């Protein structure tokens, strides 16, 4: 993959050309949405995260010339957007506990339960394992690319991936029995 400054797509984005943004959208939006959905489990939140990533791409376009890999940049951004939503969701859950106790008014609609055994088992994974699966399987990244996005060694990413699959196998086995 060419360096940011050599990539014509990045050069177009830095120059603020709309067609470059459209091309970047066509190239990455599908995989970004799938990865965000894999991490968040909600289509609406995943779409919001993708929109946030592309708008930030436009707003910080002047710094893109420093970026080595546009794909790495975008997947790192979508992961951060997902993490922010996890944190917000955790705060909302704490608020929901208060709502149940009758202390504050309800404001967040209940989240839909995932359908399918595999999906339910996936949602039950710890966040750090789920994000590896989401980036690798849904985002279509290699172990090296996933490691770069997460800022970890490839071995750590590969271990987490394997633990995630083993946990899925265990949960699916438990459901079957």
């Amino acid at each position, binding site marked *: 993959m060419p360096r940011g400054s050599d990539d014509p797509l990045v050069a177009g984005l830095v120059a603020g050309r709309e067609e470059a*943004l459209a091309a970047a959208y066509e190239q990455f*939006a599908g995989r970004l*949405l799938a990865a965000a959905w894999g991490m968040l489990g909600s289509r609406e939140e995943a779409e919001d995260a993708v929109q946030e990533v592309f708008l930030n791409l436009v707003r910080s376009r002047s710094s893109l010339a420093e970026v080595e890999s546009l794909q790495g940049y975008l997947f790192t951004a979508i992961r951060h957007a997902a993490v922010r939503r996890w944190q917000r969701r955790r705060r909302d859950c704490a608020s929901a506990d208060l709502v149940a106790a009758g202390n504050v008014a309800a404001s967040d609609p209940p989240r839909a339960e995932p359908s399918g055994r595999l999906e339910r088992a996936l949602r039950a994974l710890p966040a750090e394992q789920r994000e590896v*699966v989401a980036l690798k*399987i849904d985002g279509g990244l290699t172990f*090296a690319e996933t490691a770069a996005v997460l800022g970890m060694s490839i071995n750590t990413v590969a271990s987490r991936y*394997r633990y995630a*699959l083993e946990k899925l196998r265990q949960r699916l086995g438990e459901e079957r029995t």
Partner: protein
Amino acid sequence: MKPPDLPEDLKAIERDLAARPRPAPSEALRQRILAAARRDLSSPAAPEQRRLGTWEFALAAAAVALLVTNLAMSAANDMTWSRRPALDRNAVAAAAEEISRLAPQLAPQEARREALILVAGSPLPMVLEVNIKPGEAPWMRPDRQELLLPDATDVKP
């Protein structure tokens, strides 16, 4: 990186994960994002906020310190720090004598006071217009004449 050597059951789960349906970006999302991006592209780019690096901060601090030192030294150089030398008693006596000769109506103490002021180089005006009555000094403001003129009862003719 060689892919991890997974057992067959884990590979099957991996295949199931890859095969499960995923949401695809809708046309509405595309329109929404591109329209929002178009608005951002058409508006003038906001100046990028940048934090100072360590060296830039050190240089800025050094420049400010230099400026403050320079200003302080300029102010210090404009001030007279040395003490005046002790008064020459002979000069004071001579000046008092001269003042008494020129203005014999002054008491000796007053003449000595004026001589001290004269020799000390004080910028205070010498009060010699003791005989000038209020209204007789047209160069002075009327309200100041009352203040500056000494009490006539102190002055011996």
